[in-house]
């Protein structure tokens, strides 16, 4: 789960990292009031779960409160990579002398946390990685003992940070690692960690922040779960999460219901394999999981049917421990609760498949067709969409 910039910076502040004292506005008048309160130059920043805000015009400097209002009214409602902006952060302007990049993330390949710093902050770090990878200092952290002081020294000297800033840098790096470890984060990023002149002093300040939380860790952080912003998520994905289903919306016409993540992906691939030449593909990824009881099957069908692009449903269940007769009963129950005339291709294989197919057949649903293999099921689903056109 991604946090917004303002949420990440508030979290950083809890771990002793200096951040600007900005506030969030939901309309242009609020933006004006906040800018007036802050005084001087402000920055109006779109709060949206998408990268490239700056390039899209979602970040603007305002000389006075009137300009802040003007910028906010343009940025609010703006579409950035198909995410609609519905709030802006108003931060005080800063006298920036330099920009550092600092982040803690999971290094999957090394199976350890990784802290990274670069003198080339402010830019797209992936671009730095492509053009000058030696400018990113990377240090692995032993998760059992955490980030050590000498490692921070290695970072500071690696990016040629002036000695007089080392003490501040150490406090920030330690805070960022603690924040990462205490939040089940998969990423805590400050870009830029700016060198700013303030009241005659040179200080380091996190002008931007990004945090991603491990979904599997959210259960023990209700305070972070409470920060979830569903306003940008498709309704289907929200409903699926509430029903404990794993669902991702795609843009095709074949609604897929499968047990198991790998098989669900393979089923999507298969429908695209046959359908691509006709512009037909999967409408979603949906894993009903191992249990697949009637309630979950019904919930899955409801979610699939709420997608108006869906022209055909493909149910592919490989009963291992899951029994096909249980799934069949689930389908029949679901069909009585969520009736549909759309063609449904059903492939039930594995444990108790005969009993399962008998249950499906005895229900006499005219829009339902069986298939023996994944290959056949995908082919039939594509044909059904073509027939419906």
């Amino acid at each position, binding site marked *: 789960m991604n946090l917004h910039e303002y949420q990440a910076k508030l979290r950083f502040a809890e771990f002793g990292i200096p951040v600007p004292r900005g506030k969030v506005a939901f309309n242009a008048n609020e933006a004006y009031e906040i800018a007036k309160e802050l005084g001087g130059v402000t920055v109006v920043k779109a709060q949206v779960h998408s990268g490239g805000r700056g390039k899209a015009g979602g970040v603007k400097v305002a000389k006075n409160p009137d300009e802040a209002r003007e910028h906010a009214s343009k940025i609010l409602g703006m579409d950035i990579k198909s995410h609609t902006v519905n709030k802006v952060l108003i931060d005080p302007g800063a006298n920036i002398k330099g920009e550092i990049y600092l982040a803690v993330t999971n290094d999957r390949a090394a199976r350890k946390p990784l802290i990274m710093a670069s003198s080339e902050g402010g830019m797209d770090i992936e671009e730095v990685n492509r053009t000058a990878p030696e400018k990113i200092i990377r240090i692995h952290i032993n*998760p059992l003992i955490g980030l050590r002081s000498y490692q921070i020294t290695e970072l500071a000297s690696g990016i040629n940070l002036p000695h007089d800033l080392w003490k501040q840098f150490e406090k920030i790096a330690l805070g960022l690692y603690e924040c990462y470890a205490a939040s089940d984060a998969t990423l805590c990023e400050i870009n830029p960690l700016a060198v700013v002149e303030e009241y005659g002093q040179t200080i380091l300040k996190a002008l931007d922040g990004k945090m991603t939380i491990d979904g599997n860790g959210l259960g023990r952080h209700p305070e972070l779960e409470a920060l979830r912003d569903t306003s940008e998520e498709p309704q289907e994905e929200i409903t699926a999460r509430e029903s404990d289903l794993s669902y991702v919306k795609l843009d095709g016409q074949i609604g897929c219901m499968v047990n198991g993540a*790998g098989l669900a992906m393979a089923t999507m691939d*298969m429908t695209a*394999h046959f359908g691509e030449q006709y512009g037909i593909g999967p409408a979603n*990824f949906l894993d009903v999981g191992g249990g697949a009881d009637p309630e979950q099957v019904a919930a899955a069908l409801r979610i699939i049917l709420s997608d108006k692009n869906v022209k055909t449903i493909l149910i592919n269940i490989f009963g291992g421990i899951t029994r096909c007769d249980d799934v069949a009963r689930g389908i029949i129950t679901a069909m009585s609760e969520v009736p549909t005339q759309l063609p449904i291709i059903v492939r039930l294989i594995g444990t108790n498949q005969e009993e399962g197919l008998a249950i499906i057949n005895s229900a006499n649903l005219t829009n339902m067709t069986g298939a023996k293999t994944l290959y056949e099921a995908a082919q039939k689903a594509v044909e059904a969409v073509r027939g419906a056109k």
Partner: protein
Amino acid sequence: MAILVDKNTKLVVQGITGKQGRFHAQQMIEYGTNVVGGVRAGKGGEWVLGKPVFDTVKAAREATGANCSIIYVPAEGAADAVLEAIDAEIELIVCITEGIPIQDMMKVRAILDTSNSRLIGANCPGLLTPGQAKVGIMPGYIATPGPIGVVSKSGTLTYEAVYALTQRGIGQTTCVGIGGDPINGTSFLDVLQMFEEDPNTEKVVLIGEIGGTDEQKAADFIDKHMTKPVVAFIAGQRAPAGKTMGHAGALVEGNVGTAAEKIEKLKSVGVKVASYPEQIPDLIMQ
């Protein structure tokens, strides 16, 4: 011959008194696996399915000589269960549990690396050596003894591939599900090495998916160290970037971890890559 589990496996079930643990323990016993006992703190001295229950893994190992443990403990306690099994010096630990936080797994991994234990999973279907032992949740009847080693990140997709092989009369030495989490105990490389060394395994099926770089590393390993032919399938060719596809590890980040990248890399080292799971037997027979 087989790898990892066989007739000599003495299995202890962590979480045997729970709904899942009990159900699958029964399935494993019916398959012929030598289940020697179970563990559940606070239920030591009781009996489940005719097997003794112990309070700790250590007590279970001392009493039964168990060399393998399987974990059906909910996510919040699963990392602890793995650590307990490592502490009890269990040689092979199989963790079925899904949803363990990644930072927990990093810590487990750091401890595991200093021990003599091997962990399979978490978030995996376990292992099956047809005719000898089933340690996990794979349905037993879909497999049959034979010369093919199967290693996979997925559960039901593995069943699909194994069933397709069995339907065509092609049996398996051992089927290993390594799990779909970003950080796990055993990698493709470990299992490929074991299949390469196993005299009864003639060919290997590798089933991967989007996310991470494990399949690319497997390709390098196959290129340098394997003499046995490998057939692969990679799920998630149509998966969009930035969306997790069910498994916590199945996530395309930037350009890293796409199916196309993995397939190209595997093909470049001579691995035959199936377009769909049911094509795997055709490629194995070629």
